[in-house]
């Protein structure tokens, strides 16, 4: 077993993990944060996407020990209490999901995209979310949701400043 310390959604955790423990299993099984889904388990589908120090990673091909000392953000950390994050709200409003399996990964990837580019073009959103597979929506509504959230987040930022 190896000792690790990680901060997940702002909360520090220390744990003893088997070196082979995948980060996604650590989050789901050890911390009970089952919002992050497991899909292909070999780094292709993207539903296990979380942010590590602000950057999106595939938690199914990352060992928990590799995250030692890092700050992890998962879908559970997006909402502010009962208030949904603009991305979550827009995914809901624009029907950016059907079965919902890809949604946690999509949301985390989208949050990284908008952190780096608050005003992406539809083409930029399409290319950026190509890392995550959705087999229901045909992506159209996901793209609209991300663009809608971008607009709202820009407006909120302007109001705040």
């Amino acid at each position, binding site marked *: 077993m190896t000792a690790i310390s990680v901060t997940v959604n702002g909360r520090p955790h220390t744990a003893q993990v088997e070196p082979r423990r995948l980060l996604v299993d650590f989050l789901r099984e050890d911390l009970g944060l089952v919002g992050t889904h497991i899909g292909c388990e*070999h780094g292709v589908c993207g539903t296990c996407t979380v942010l590590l120090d602000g950057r999106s990673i595939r938690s199914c091909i990352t060992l928990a020990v590799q995250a030692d000392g890092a700050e992890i953000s998962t879908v559970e950390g997006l909402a502010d209490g009962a208030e949904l994050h603009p991305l979550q709200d827009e995914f809901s409003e624009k029907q950016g999901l059907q079965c919902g399996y890809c949604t946690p990964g999509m949301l985390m990837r989208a949050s990284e995209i908008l952190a780096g580019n608050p005003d992406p073009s539809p083409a930029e959103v399409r290319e950026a979310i190509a890392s995550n597979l959705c087999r229901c929506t045909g992506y159209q509504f996901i793209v609209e949701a991300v663009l809608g959230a971008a607009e709202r987040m820009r407006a909120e930022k302007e109001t705040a400043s």
Partner: protein
Amino acid sequence: MAAGTRGGQHRECALGRSPLKPPPFDYAAPTTLDEAIGLLAEHAGAEARVLAGGQSLIPMMNFRLAKPGYLVDLRRVAGLAGIRREGDTLVIGAMTRMAEVERSPEVAVAAPLVTEAIGLVAHVPVRNSGTVGGSLAHADPAAELPAVVLALDAKLVAAGPGGTRTIPAGEFFTGPYGTALAPEEILTEVRLPVWPGGHAFTEFSRIHANFAVVAVAALVDADGDRIRRASVALAGVGPTPVRAHSAERALLGTSGDAETIRRAAQLAAADLSPAGDLHASAETRLTLAQVYLRRGLELAVSRARNER
């Protein structure tokens, strides 16, 4: 743990737990290179391996295609990540994340071929973790970066128990997933000569960001209208990336006109003997190699002209 407990995994699978998990292994995250090398030597019997970003190794372990009994994680070793310019050489530390290289203005200026190729390596979340050294040491025959370092005549620096040595890219790749690195050696940096002319990285893949079926790294340097230097490497057409020397020779002294490029692509393809697999037959790969050689050379030549 290590080798002795591996049999237990089958029982776990039979109990209905997901089979796509790595087999057990022992693990260390040393803070110095010497320590890392020592651990690799010490655990050679357990098939110790280096863990860089893990973006190829961990999926292979999930599939049980790789079963190292010991992993030496390089993430805490100081001095292995970073990008710096040393005169006419761009030095990229082995643990530098691909995404960092992709965003680096220094790389875009000194080695735009690297920037262009890295944009085609998987997707952003993989490039956020995956490292330059990891991709090179993994040596997938369809990967982009091995073809890039081969075209650039880069030097790869490896540290081992006896000190460091420099391996020319042309001698580094020995077979599919095989390199000149000894089991207890660690790739520490890649030294890329700054190419003064035009570049192009083009590839065919069935889905954007998949491994290339065929990829071409092309470099052309012109003096006035005459090509004075050309360097071309391909991935996906053999067990290792290969240089297309006949195409390079065919371009020298010419203006790089369409007919010369077409002939150079033809000559290069004649030297190739790719194997067919489920992604593409040998014939398809040969055709793709010609097409992408042509496109890559045309782009590199036009950029070489616009450089002036």
